[in-house]
């Protein structure tokens, strides 16, 4: 869901301003730098392109927006968190659009499911923005975000790794892959207002679908992420949507929310850096093409294992940053509340 219109936010694990270092004032040096008009700093264009390609590859492969990787990378380069979050949404929109088109062509997008999820998602975003503002008044937003990252990413990453390793072991032993829908439907899928999602080949209550969308929206606004890496496992494990359809549907949902985020950030905060976004999206779309092909070439279990490892790694990284003594116990941020 659209990242909250606040900046301080996003990724608590990097100190926004302490890492803000630019190249020293050397004339003639670093010829391939480009000055970002909104972020107001020069960066190496190849570094940006490479980051776009790498994150785009991951985004295409797993159907995640990549915001949870790209935003900290940009902050590390020295881009202010508010500008990083807003500009990443243009990159994610481009990447997810080209990814969505790929999956649409292969008929692996459940548009109906995406719409129902979006309905819950937009409500969740609103709730997330409100909670976000309340936490900021208490001054403990960073801590809540960091703990949310550690718990959520750790748990989901671990779950995916364990599950996919089991599936792999089963295959190695020569047992047939587990039946897609073991046993009876989970209780929450048997709730009222059942709906048939043909593309995903599921017949479930809309209540859990809307709730998942709501939670993704809530967490997305709160944590400044697109939510794709939460949505894909939620669709796979909770709603039992086929892996590739989950990826395609998640891409479409990411596309819708990122387009909303671009407009919201541009109008409310004027923090969308079009130049930064353009370089990232050129790299990102190229990366996403190769990524989505690599994703389709992989077995579903391997894909889930890789995504699980990635999510787990990011969670561990946050935990590491939060538990090791920082080089400087002090950090300076720009006060956005005061003129």
């Amino acid at each position, binding site marked *: 869901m659209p990242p909250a219109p606040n900046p301080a936010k996003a990724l608590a694990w990097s100190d926004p*301003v*302490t890492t*803000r*270092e*630019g*190249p*020293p*004032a050397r*004339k003639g*040096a*670093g010829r391939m*730098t*480009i*000055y970002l*008009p*909104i972020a*107001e700093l*020069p960066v190496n264009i190849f570094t940006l392109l490479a980051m776009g390609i790498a994150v785009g590859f991951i985004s295409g492969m797993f159907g995640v927006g990549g915001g949870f990787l790209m935003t900290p990378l940009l902050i590390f380069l*020295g881009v202010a968190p508010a500008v990083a979050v807003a500009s990443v949404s*243009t990159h994610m*929109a*481009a990447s*997810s*659009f*080209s990814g969505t*088109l790929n999956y649409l062509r292969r008929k692996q997008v459940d548009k109906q499911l995406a719409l129902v999820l979006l309905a819950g998602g937009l409500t969740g975003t609103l709730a997330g923005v409100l909670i976000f503002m309340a936490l900021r008044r208490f*001054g403990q937003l*960073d*801590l809540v975000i*960091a*703990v949310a990252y550690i718990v959520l990413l750790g748990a989901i990453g671990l779950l995916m790794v364990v599950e996919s390793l089991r599936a792999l072991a089963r295959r190695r032993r020569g047992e047939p892959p587990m039946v897609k829908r073991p046993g009876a439907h989970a209780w929450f899928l048997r709730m009222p207002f059942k709906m048939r999602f043909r593309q995903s080949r599921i017949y479930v209550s809309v209540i859990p679908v809307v709730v998942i969308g709501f939670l993704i929206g809530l967490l997305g606004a709160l944590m400044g992420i697109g939510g794709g890496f939460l949505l894909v496992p939620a669709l796979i494990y909770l709603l039992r949507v086929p892996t590739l359809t989950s990826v395609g549907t998640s891409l479409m949902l990411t596309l819708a929310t990122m*387009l909303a985020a*671009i*407009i*919201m950030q*541009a*109008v409310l905060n*004027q923090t*969308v850096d*079009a130049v930064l976004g*353009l370089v990232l*999206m050129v790299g990102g*779309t*190229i990366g996403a*093409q190769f990524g989505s*092909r690599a994703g389709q070439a992989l077995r579903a279990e391997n894909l889930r294992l890789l995504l699980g490892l990635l999510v787990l790694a990011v969670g561990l990284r946050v935990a590491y940053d*939060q*538990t*090791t*003594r*920082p080089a*400087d*116990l*002090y*950090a*300076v*941020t*720009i*006060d956005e509340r*005061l003129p």
Partner: protein
Amino acid sequence: MMPAGMPPGLRRRAVLLLLAGAMVALAPALGRAEALVLSLSKSRITITSSFTGDSIVLFGVIEALPGRSTDTPRDVIVTVRGPNESFVTWRKERHFGLWVNVDSRSFLSAPSYLAVLSNRDPAEISDSDTLRQEQAGLTHNRFLQRVGSDYADVVPEDPFRQAFIRVKKAQGLYFEDSAGVTFIAPRVFRAVIPIPGIAPVGTYQVSVKTFLDQHLEAHGLLPLDVTKVDFEQTVATAAQDHPWLYGLASALGALAVGFIASIAFRRD
């Protein structure tokens, strides 16, 4: 206004002359014994897409009035201040294994960029009271903090104040060079002011203070503009003035790039 057709050298000299005239005219009114003639190698730093930082050279001439001692060497402290911004300095502490922000101080209207250049250590130039009063030297600058409902600067040893300066120095936005001012003739000096690539946009103030026998002798002020031009300016203005259009254009641009990529890489 200067005729635009004048060759740059001539124009600079004309500026110097004009400045000298203005300074001399003002000097008696201020009751100062000396006047300063100052000139920057350019008064405007333009940010284009290849901008990675720049340096500005400051030239200064100390004009002694007749009857004053001209032998005693003068000391010069140049302070460059970028546009003011408010900052928060946070302190972390370990709680339940996590490093958490536990305490913070707001620094109000602190310069976003601060360079202090002098011909020798400011501490040798004058006593600390004078230095503090004249805000000469990096640590003698005032950094207003909000303490409760009060606004005040604190002692230089204050950990938050020290941390603030340390972090800004590490970013390259604050710095101090006690050999940054060089005398090319007994009363002519020059200083190189480095402007890093991440320098904030706005009007900077270049303040020059000369000291004689520990006392402030003359004071001069020059503005220095750091502005975006051409494409950079167009993008920044569009984002400011037409946010809806800018947002829509960015969104459409993103869709176009995504679409082109999907067509270009189509295999079937």
